[in-house]
């Protein structure tokens, strides 16, 4: 059964700094998703990564996928306060399986 692990689970960073969230998954996953959740809000789809070496970028966020290492990363460049949220990765076998989420706090 697919298991998805994220680390770190909590990340406090200064504005302007770079950091990476890691997402490991246990078995073959057809694709890998990244979602964002603001406090008390719904989940917003950020990226879907379909194949080995896939890289997607939107603003200060860049996601990549290494299917051989069963690893996806979400890289944050020059963080700003508006990026504060919980970020989830999710793998897909026959259903979406979420990681525990990474709570990101960007301090001014």
């Amino acid at each position: 059964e697919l298991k998805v692990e994220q680390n770190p689970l909590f990340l406090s960073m200064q504005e302007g700094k770079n950091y990476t969230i890691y997402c490991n998954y246990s078995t073959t996953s057809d694709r890998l998703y990244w979602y964002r959740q603001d406090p008390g809000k719904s989940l917003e789809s950020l990226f879907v990564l379909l194949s080995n070496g896939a890289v997607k970028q939107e603003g200060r966020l860049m996601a990549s996928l290494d299917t051989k290492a069963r690893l996806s990363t979400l890289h944050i460049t020059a963080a700003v306060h508006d990026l504060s949220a919980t970020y989830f990765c999710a793998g897909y076998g026959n259903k979406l399986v979420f990681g525990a989420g990474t709570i990101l706090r960007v301090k001014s």
Partner: protein
Amino acid sequence: DTAVSQTPKYLVTQMGNDKSIKCEQNLGHDTMYWYKQDSKKFLKIMFSYNNKELIINETVPNRFSPKSPDKAHLNLHINSLELGDSAVYFCASSLTSGGAIDTQYFGPGTRLTVL
């Protein structure tokens, strides 16, 4: 226009009561889902329906019964509510049940509190 909507947004009720949560999507998607997000923010799928047919039924107490009157609606009925049912319940939909880039779109969530 809201793509995936849920009602109610908040639900506070006593143990032992029966309650329902409604979900509607106007995206023309074939597949709908129910997820439970617990107090630690962990998200887990409960059910999935494709074109009104149940396709995923995770290990969920049979007090939980989904119903899909048509492919745009998926409701969740919960009998004999227990304290442990307190959580946020999210409805989601996707175009198909496993297409190549089948992103799931989530509703706003229903925060259920059982007293």
